[in-house]
């Protein structure tokens, strides 16, 4: 069957890895070292994920330790026997039972790339799709010039552009401090940095931070640099609103309480042309959700994530989930998990279930994973969704960016939805727009939990459906002739 331009057959491998960030690239490299045939896909043009984004367009990059680590990973991947397919957007993953009676059940992956649709098949699938930013809505958050913290990181590390001439930063988590320091270090004028956390929230995590001395020193250096630059550091503050006509012109900050909600106190107004804001990270677990693996909810680790065992295998045999997409734990754990899965798959090529004790490598990785957890948990705590902040979203504030749906409309629809998050989607169109619920999902689910006084587990998530990314019909269909289309039997008359 002819599926598209030049793609007449389905490419097979032992392992398909979706995502070539720290976790996915490491898994691909390690599995390939174990003698397996590996295909790794990423929608970006190069490996590295978000934390190690490759510089583009002639920008030489920042030239720091982080940039070197990213370059090293890309080097190792290209030297490995794993076949990397960049600029490919995976839109469909289905489980397949063996066709000819022989062969293991596995997965069929479809991805659109520069040459059209590509179909791949493998008995093992490793999902390393990372996380995306959470931004809790506030008035004016949809104005051009308001970008995420992760977006500012990409501008700094990969594109070589400042977000604006007069930048205000806001949000929470370690990324806030890192990006502030990065901007200041690049000579960008940062007017203010508003952190939802109070100083004592950071101090409480000091023991975990001190367990990672190199990072502790780096973090301290960031704070010093930011202070010396003249930026106003405002702990326990958040964004009240952003204002402007066709772009951000003014940012108003105000004090917040421990739950993240605004509290009484003086507002501060900044004339700014850019607002960099981020309230933590949420897991991008669309693939595992679509395949109906069992998931659990953890506010600390970024929301919903697939349940995995010590081999990072989900409740679906052959399906593995690693990195921030399986629980936001940061780069170090992501890289370790990638290596762990690569080892497990390599061992599996020899026997069905390799016992832990059989391989010293497993134990070494597991020990490193255990050591890395306290720090990552400490940082994750600073990034977890703050219930008070969501509950305080104003009635007229747009919550679903794609469809312009306000808080008030969502609350009214919740009352008509019989407790069904899917019905809420149908009544409001939240989750039906181009972003497929990535930016509003966490907030909308929390709003339903708040209004119905239910835990997030009871509210659930939207049913996972293809396409995993928006794909144009033209890319999907490729060139074809009418006779190519496999026509099923017509309906009865």
């Amino acid at each position, binding site marked *: 069957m002819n599926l598209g331009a030049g793609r007449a057959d389905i490419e097979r491998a032992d392992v398909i890895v979706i995502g070539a960030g720290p976790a996915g690239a490491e898994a691909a490299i390690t599995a390939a070292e174990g003698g397996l045939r590996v295909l790794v896909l990423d929608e970006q043009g190069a490996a590295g994920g978000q934390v190690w984004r490759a510089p583009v367009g002639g920008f030489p990059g920042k030239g720091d330790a982080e940039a070197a680590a990213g370059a090293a990973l890309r080097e190792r991947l290209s030297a490995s026997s794993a076949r990397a397919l960049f600029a490919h957007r995976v839109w469909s993953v289905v489980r397949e039972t063996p066709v000819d009676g022989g062969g293991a059940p596995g997965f069929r992956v479809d991805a659109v790339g520069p040459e059209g649709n590509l179909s791949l098949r493998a008995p093992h699938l490793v999902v390393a799709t990372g996380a995306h930013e959470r931004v809790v809505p506030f008035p004016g958050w949809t104005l051009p010039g308001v970008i995420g913290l992760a977006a500012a990181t990409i501008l700094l590390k990969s594109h070589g552009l400042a977000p604006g001439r007069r930048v205000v930063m806001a949000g929470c988590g370690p990324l806030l401090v890192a990006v502030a320091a990065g901007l200041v270090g690049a000579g960008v004028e940062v007017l203010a940095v508003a952190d939802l956390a109070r100083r004592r929230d950071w101090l409480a995590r000091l023991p975990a931070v001190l367990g990672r001395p190199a990072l502790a020193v780096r973090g301290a250096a960031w704070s010093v640099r930011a202070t010396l630059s003249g930026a106003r550091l405002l702990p326990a503050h958040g964004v009240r609103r952003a204002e402007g006509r066709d772009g951000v012109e003014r940012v108003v900050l105000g004090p917040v309480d421990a739950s993240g909600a605004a509290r009484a106190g003086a507002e501060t107004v900044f004339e700014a042309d850019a607002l960099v804001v981020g309230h933590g990270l949420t897991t991008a677990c669309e693939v595992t959700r679509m395949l109906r693996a069992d998931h659990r909810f953890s506010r600390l680790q970024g929301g919903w994530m697939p349940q995995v065992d010590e081999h990072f295998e989900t409740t679906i045999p052959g399906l593995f989930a690693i990195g921030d997409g399986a629980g936001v734990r940061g780069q170090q754990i992501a890289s370790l998990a990638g290596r762990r899965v690569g080892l497990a798959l390599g061992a599996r090529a020899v026997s069905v279930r390799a016992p832990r004790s059989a391989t010293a490598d497993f134990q070494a990785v597991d020990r490193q994973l255990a050591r890395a957890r306290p720090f990552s948990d400490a940082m994750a705590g600073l990034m977890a969704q703050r219930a008070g902040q969501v509950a305080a979203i104003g009635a007229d504030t747009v919550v679903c960016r794609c469809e312009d749906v306000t808080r008030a409309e969502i609350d009214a629809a919740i009352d008509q939805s019989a407790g069904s998050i899917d019905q809420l989607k149908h009544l409001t169109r939240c989750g039906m727009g*181009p972003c497929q619920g990535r*930016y509003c999902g966490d907030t909308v689910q929390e709003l339903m939990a708040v209004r119905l006084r239910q835990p997030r587990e009871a509210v659930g998530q939207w049913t996972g459906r293809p396409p995993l990314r928006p794909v144009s019909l033209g890319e999907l269909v490729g060139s074809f002739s009418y006779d190519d289309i496999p026509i099923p039997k017509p309906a009865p008359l």
Partner: protein
Amino acid sequence: MSALLLFRPTRVVSVSVDGKACELPEGMMLATALASAGVRALRTSPRAGASRGAFCLMGACQECAIHVDGVLRQACMTSVRAGMSVELRGVP
């Protein structure tokens, strides 16, 4: 060149944006390149008609989906090439 750039681009090429010629750094992501040229409003939102621009820069939010050479593309994942034709009508 734009005061926002943190480096000196090696090559600058001509791109058409809504019919007007624009000089943008070759190989830079289109969304960023447009921002460096002062173009941050890329489209309008469906119900309120409000100005929208790039937000996440990682291909997730779809706010930067605009027409490049007639095809809808995420500007944050599209590299600037000479002769590119960009229309800021986006997903309505």
